């Protein structure tokens, strides 16, 4: 099958992949670029497990063609933060018990990141709206909403400052 080269900046690093015309961004990320933190829960745009930030917007990677991402910047969960330099969202998710099986987590955290970048001070309703495209079967969402609310408060105080500090 004919393939085309695309260049995408994944988590700050330019990468080249050979993809077919109909290949989804999800398949390219997982199968070609080994970005296994991007999860495949339904391949149909219903569950949100494959959410990534593409050119500043949270999208379902399974509903995006890989070629559409050519020349663009993508943030996956690993681009949100790392164990050496965690994002407040990541710490907050762990501390609030907002993670159970964790399969939805990469998508939820990425959606939350996109939400907070657009709206650093969301209310609980806006938080629920912001993650409404991400299904979670384990947590019941309450602890996720609390984690995002807390991370937002943390972000407003500035990195490294804690309420109790």
């Amino acid at each position, binding site marked *: *099958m004919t393939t085309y080269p695309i260049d995408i900046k994944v988590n700050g690093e330019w990468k080249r992949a050979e993809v077919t015309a109909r290949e989804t961004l999800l398949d390219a990320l997982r199968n070609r670029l080994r970005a*296994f*933190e991007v*999860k*495949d*829960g*339904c*391949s*149909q745009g*219903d*569950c949100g*497990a494959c959410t990534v930030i593409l050119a500043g917007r949270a999208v379902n990677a399974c509903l995006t063609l890989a070629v559409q991402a050519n020349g663009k910047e993508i943030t*996956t*969960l*690993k681009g949100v*933060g*790392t*164990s050496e330099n*965690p994002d407040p969202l*990541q710490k907050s*998710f*762990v*501390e*609030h*018990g907002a*993670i*159970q*099986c*964790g*399969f*939805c*987590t*990469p998508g939820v*955290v990425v959606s939350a990141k996109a939400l907070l970048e657009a709206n650093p001070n969301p209310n*609980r309703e806006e*938080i*629920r*709206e912001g*993650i*409404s*495209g*991400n*299904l*979670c*079967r*384990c*947590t*019941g*969402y*309450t*602890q*996720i*909403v609390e984690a995002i609310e807390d991370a937002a408060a943390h972000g407003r105080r500035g990195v490294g400052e804690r309420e109790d500090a």
Partner: protein
Amino acid sequence: MPENRTRPAYRIIGKAAPRPDAWAKVFGDTAYAHDYTVPGMLCAKVLRSRHPAARVLSIDTGDAEKLPGVDAVLTAKDVPNNETATRFGQTHQVGGFEGLYRVLAEKKIRFKGEAVALVAATSEAVAEEALGLIHVEYEPLEGVFDPVEAKQAGAYQVGEDESNVICSYKVRKGDVEEGFKLADVVVEQTYRVPMVDHAYLEPESGVAWLDQDGVITIRSATQVIEHFRGIADVLGVSHNRVRIIAPMLGGGFGGKEDITVETYLALLVWKTRKPVSLTYTREESIRSHGKRHPYVMRYKTGATKAGKLVALEAELTSDAGGYVYLSPWVLLYSTVGATGPYDIPHVKVDSETVLTNNTFSSANRGFGAPQVCFACESQLDELAKQLGLSPLEIRRKNYLRTGDALATGRVLEHSVETEQTADRALEALGEPSGPSSPTERIGRGIASSMTSYGRMTFLHDTSRALVSIEMDGSVSVRCGLQDVGGGQASSLAQIAAEVLGVPMEDVTVYVGDSALTPLAGTTTATRLLYMSGNATKKAATAVRHSLVKKAADLLDVDPEELAMGDRQIYSAGDPDRAVALERVVKACAADGIPLYDVAQFNAPARELIDFQTGQGQVFPDFTFGTQAMEVSVDIETGAVKVLKIVSCYDVGQAINTLSAEGQLHGGALYGLGYGMMEEVVLDKGNTLTPSFAEYLIPSAVDVPDVKTIMIESGGGVGPFGAKGLGEPSCVPAAAAFANAVSDAIGARVCDLPVTPERILKALGRF
């Protein structure tokens, strides 16, 4: 935080402990089944029947085999032992309970989506193309799709030689006819509940290969690594030639309790001698893997004017679908649980599970409990309404209490705090969100449940754990458990850390390898914490004894005086008299004292109950709880908004309050989805809802925050007095939702889910 009891002074147990596995997950480092690759692995696909009922006349795989890139095409004739049963880990063989199924279809097709052939090829695209080149000739048959119809004489026969009725049970207590004579009010109703999907975010998936010794090694998303025995039996190899490794699961909920991809992978690896991977599509998962049983339930319940229940009669029919799988066991749970957490003097329950040509049903969170809870709790509210009592009043008059006997004669010897959970749940709803308006009606409902934890006692369940302490004082726990995401491994780390006086981060837990970790049974039946928690505590305590004995020598004090904490062993009366744990470990090692213990925990073992009367003990213990909801119903459209949810449980003792609360949160919504929106819609065996666009589960905007209340009675049979929460936490929510809607609209919907259409019908507006 949990309340209610003078808490023993634990260092780590009962705290909100962020889970070690959560860090890996939040940084994207967890390798789930689908995230694992083996060099040179083939991709497998499954050919599935397009008919729900048909005779297989011929299968021609020639064209598919010739396609370049195809390594193997397998059909039933390639499976050494094609008829098999779901069995796992029980030490006791129980006749009449075999969960029979076929690996690949032969003779008759029994449901749409049944596996007919397997392909392994060099890529997914080639495997997909090969499926299209397999020519199967079917003779479509009429089939039967309604369980009540399927049990009538002369109904279409789903299998070849067995009756459609798989099994039946009875419970008999007192004299139900006499009981109804004592009743001032009797309500009678038929309830129907739908087939539902587990809807875990991670579809069924695995990779398998032959290791250097020729052992078939399967790394798959499973709740049961002990399926290695059943898979070996299918292949006709000895049990120690198949190994299963369970990575972190992306959710299980009972759907990864039966074998999913494992046998297919093993067959293909055996045939090709190459590594093979297989992941179901979401559609394949919804169409062809096990579901929660639909039930038809006729209930009749009588009470006196004072509100005391005097008689209950129930007839339960469950739809097993095309194969037996775990249907007899699920039905037994429903039968024992049919009377709810209530003391009723005269009881008659008759139940049957029936084969149809629908998608097969098997284990799903709650295992037969949510169905009967909905029916029973609806009856309680109907009686209350007729008697002019509040839902809480009628329940209070009838709750079972410690020392009371169930309808099966089993005496509840451990703590029963149902009434307190109901009081607290209702109280926590607070003031109503607002008055009803002519079109927006506010309503409230509660439902209570008694749900078992631990497997059926006639299975003689066991678990094992190995706890060892390393030369630097760090601790390893090895336990053949499967972590489905509820914090299973993390809870064992906490238990070992508590017993051995180290911080939780000093403990590493190795899980889920049928060859290398001591076998610990299934992560099902809300048994993990109970069984493996007790085994871990037992092993850790044995290690502690060795260490304390050695420390007593070193410190020259009585071992009885010593405590462990902060990586030290010290005199409780004189904490300055202390020795570092590391030093004690080294001293033990020098003297040849074992620095590990492998312990087995045995659940109470009983014989089979009497199926004609239902009398006997089926479960080790129960968890009691109540869920309360407030809803607003738009009576013009039937749309319902859930305004408040409270979930209150006696958890016994929370091991990790974050994880325990997590179960209460997630369980409440799993149950609410069942009540409000979830249904696998079937038309003559054909699933009309094969994606998450049609099969709807609650999203973040469909539900409010859940308020959780944990009571800690300390009265469970798990470690430190813990009870199990995984399944119990989801059971009453659907019933509480239906009761709240009924309170709002003044009419009852008797079928789940309680959809806007059904609400308008109940109001006579549709």
